[in-house]
């Protein structure tokens, strides 16, 4: 049969329409290679593992802290992950919703990074050096102690009691911190001394 111009024109057009289906049918789809299946890279690889104890409640779950860098080796160490210690008899690797999120507390946006002072009546904190802060504190302690130390009571009994400065200790600090705090506070004669065990 004779195929005239217009028929060739027709074929050009029709071709486009068909292409899709037929190409697909010929399995051209596979030409579009998908990214091969893969799991996320294990993020604890090449980190330093350190054994610690959860800072929250007194179940004292064993935890493992993973960091980039090793403090023990004197390096700068950035904590990247915290999870339960499977070897620990009490928690056996488990953690509660607080413990499981410990890392976010370590890196909290409200972590303090420098000493600050709020002057009387001021509406903001300002930076202060450690030295200046500690000297101010020491001076305030001595001045108050020298002024208000009670050496004897009315009956003339030696009481060596200092009631006008108080100290609240933290139940989340270590025994070692507690002991050093105890020595310091008692040696000065402070009696207004307490910790969270009271509440």
């Amino acid at each position, binding site marked *: 049969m004779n195929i005239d111009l*217009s028929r060739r024109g*027709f074929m050009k*057009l*029709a071709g486009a*329409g068909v292409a*899709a*289906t037929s*190409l*697909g*049918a010929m*399995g*051209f*789809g596979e*030409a*579009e290679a998908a990214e091969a299946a893969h799991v996320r890279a294990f993020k604890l690889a090449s980190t330093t593992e350190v054994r610690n104890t959860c800072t929250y409640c007194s179940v004292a779950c064993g935890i493992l802290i993973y960091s980039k860098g090793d403090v023990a080796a004197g390096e700068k160490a950035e904590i990247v992950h915290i999870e339960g210690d499977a070897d620990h008899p009490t928690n056996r690797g488990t953690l509660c919703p607080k413990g499981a999120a410990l890392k976010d507390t370590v890196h909290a946006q409200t972590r303090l990074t420098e000493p600050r002072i709020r002057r009387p009546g001021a509406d903001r904190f300002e930076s202060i050096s450690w030295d200046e802060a500690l000297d101010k504190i020491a001076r305030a302690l001595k001045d108050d102690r020298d002024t208000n130390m009670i050496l004897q009571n009315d009956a003339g009994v030696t009481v060596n009691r200092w009631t006008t400065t108080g100290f609240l200790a933290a139940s989340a600090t270590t025994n070692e911190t507690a002991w050093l705090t105890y020595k310091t506070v008692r040696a000065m004669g402070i009696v207004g001394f307490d910790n969270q065990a009271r509440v």
Partner: protein
Amino acid sequence: MMARRIYSQSGDHIETTAPVTVSRYRGFTRANHWVTAASLIVLLLSGMALFHPSLYFLTALFGGGQVTRWLHPFVGILLFLSFLILFLQLWRLNLPRPEDATWVSHIGDVVRGEEEKLPELGKYNAGQKFIFWGMSALIVVLIGSGVMIWEQYFPQLVSIPVRRVAVLVHSLAAVAIILIFILHVYAAIWTRGTLRAMTRGTVTGGWAWRHHRKWLRELAGREKRDPAE
């Protein structure tokens, strides 16, 4: 005697007399048609890509799956609006008329191209009217179901069960509209002399005489009655 048009619309007129050419679509309408056509093709290709794995490679035409995913619905809206304008221009002459029934009953003659056995017709025959109304209905269905499964902007619009129905309806409607689209394109090509109506905007007198004689008569008649036109 009245001047009311029955088989033609304002703008249709005899352009030249020897040989006779008849203006069928003004420039605006043609542009409108091609915008619609273009978006339909884009939708067709992007839609098919997400419809069947074997066609996923078509996403490459648009720069990957993510682009295809966001592009498709926007083009869908474009098509909807563009077709809406077209619809407003064409709907009146696509209303069914008694002779359409006769035409459909002689569908065999239509396919054999023996039009002398058919009644005289206005601007559109029943086939064209079917395509017009079919497209209109399906586009409404597609835009409706499409929005329901438009994850990026309407994830919560309908419940998941409804969404499942929507996605099924959308794909069924898509298949249907593609079939109609093929019919439309093919008919336009098979019926020689038709394409120029949407390219140049005119058809030959013979074409008009053969396919839409009532339309031609009305236009011819109007020539003498109100030359002002």
